[in-house]
């Protein structure tokens, strides 16, 4: 029978105290949409569940100068509709909107999404393209900030210590010169784990008419979401035209091929990546929608 204890800290101090007592078998409960499912499987039960539901201060989204800070307990529904997210991190809003069902979005959190570290996590793709830092709090009351790429180590693996909780994400707020997009390909239109996802953040220099900064993140085609720096460099300085769209698509395909060579799903994903790339590119709306020739 389950021996798991549940702690319900109210306030940061109680959270720190709970984290201080954490063991490697302690788990942090945010929305529950991943963790409560797993609790059903026998074996490996947590000694303690720290229920974060009461820490409402960790759900806030706020602008901190040039930085946008998104609380770890913000739900996907919140992120989908929050005006700050829509204005300064649109790709995150789009990713949230396409994740799961309404019920999952209402409960699932952006903190849980990263901590769970599914290879297909849509939040991870968007945050990676946004260049997000992960801010954590530990049992000694210390906060640490590190890039998301240093937190996500692989499918189901993070560098988080057992006494460490994600409390927020911080990234440069996108401004009026920025455009961002998120696209995903699932097994169906809605309520599907991503088979492929892409997030694209660009700063467009309207005076020069070129893509001044580009960040491209791909998800669900590797252990975790990753940036594609060679593709970013290839696009920076280019006009936002059909040729750039084509390069972008080619670059995505190449990145997919490099990431999952020999995998059973590669023949499909390298074709589907073309569609994914054009979907993301056209969402930027920097030019008339681009269309390649299809088979």
């Amino acid at each position, binding site marked *: 029978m*389950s021996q*798991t*204890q*549940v702690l*319900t800290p109210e306030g940061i101090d109680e959270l720190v105290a709970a984290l201080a007592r954490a063991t490697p078998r302690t788990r942090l*409960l945010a*929305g*529950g*949409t991943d963790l*409560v*499912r797993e*609790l*059903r499987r026998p074996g490996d039960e947590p000694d303690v*569940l720290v*229920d974060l*539901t009461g820490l409402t201060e960790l759900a806030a989204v706020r602008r901190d100068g040039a930085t946008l800070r998104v609380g770890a307990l913000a739900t996907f*529904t919140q992120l989908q509709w929050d005006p700050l997210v829509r204005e300064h991190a649109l790709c995150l809003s789009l990713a949230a909107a396409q994740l*799961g*069902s*309404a*019920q*999952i979005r*209402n*409960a699932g959190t952006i903190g849980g999404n990263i901590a769970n570290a599914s290879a297909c996590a849509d939040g991870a793709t968007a945050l990676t393209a946004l260049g997000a830092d992960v801010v954590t709090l530990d049992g000694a009351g210390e906060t640490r900030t590190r890039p998301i790429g240093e937190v996500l180590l692989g499918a189901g693996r993070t560098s988080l210590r057992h006494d460490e909780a994600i409390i927020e994400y911080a990234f440069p707020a996108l401004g009026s010169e920025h455009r961002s997009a998120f696209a995903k390909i699932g097994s169906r239109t*809605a*309520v599907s784990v991503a088979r492929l996802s892409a997030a694209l953040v660009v700063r467009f220099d309207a005076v020069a008419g070129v893509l001044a900064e580009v960040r491209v993140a791909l998800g669900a085609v590797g252990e975790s979401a990753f940036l594609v720096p060679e593709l970013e460099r290839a696009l920076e300085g280019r006009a936002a035209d059909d040729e750039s769209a084509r390069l972008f698509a080619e670059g995505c395909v190449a990145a997919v091929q490099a990431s999952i060579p020999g995998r059973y799903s590669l023949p499909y994903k390298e074709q589907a990546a073309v569609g994914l790339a054009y979907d993301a590119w056209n969402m930027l709306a920097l030019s008339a929608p681009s269309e390649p020739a299809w088979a």
Partner: protein
Amino acid sequence: MQLVLTVNGMTYEVEARPTARLLDVLRDQFGLTGTKEGCAEGECGACTVIVDGKAVNSCVMLAVQARGKEILTVEGLAQEGELDVLQQKFVEYGAVQCGYCTPGMLMSAKALLMGNPVPSEQDIRIALAGNLCRCTGYTTIVAAVKAASGQVATPLMELPAAPEELAAEVVTDPATLAAACEIVEAETGAPVGVPCLPGDDADADPFGGPGPGSSGSRVTPEGGE
């Protein structure tokens, strides 16, 4: 662990296992079996309830997470015996077949209308994307939700007839009834004494003798009122 939960406007104190899901407490401890378990994974939506105005899957939420929040289940939709407009429309639009997905559908739809009173068809389908149905193909359900939001849709079903309407039916005319009673008395050689039934004169003595102002269907040995 001791939990205080507010469900359908009532506050309950309950002793629950720490890792009990909200679904388990609702069904097994509060006897509210309207919320169903279809998959235990947050995929089918049969367990949908509303927590602080938002639809959630109660199978992937621990009961402890719902502390201090307003929980609404399907049992809480009807008020004082009056069906919620959504429930009414589900009946009128034939949106119920086996009915197992129905509570979850109702709760997702209720949450939708609470936040978006006049949803488009696409809004409805997206709100119900996490509620699976294997019987209906969703068309009647979507129509019912649309109708509940006041948007025009053509009802499919004839409503179940109200019991009062059915009961207020045929009454045998007194002359015919009297003649029939005589026939029976002649046949059996015994007086016909018929006990009171609902609709008959409530003041009459049920064990014999005419009562004042007896109704047409009350038969007496004298054969009429």
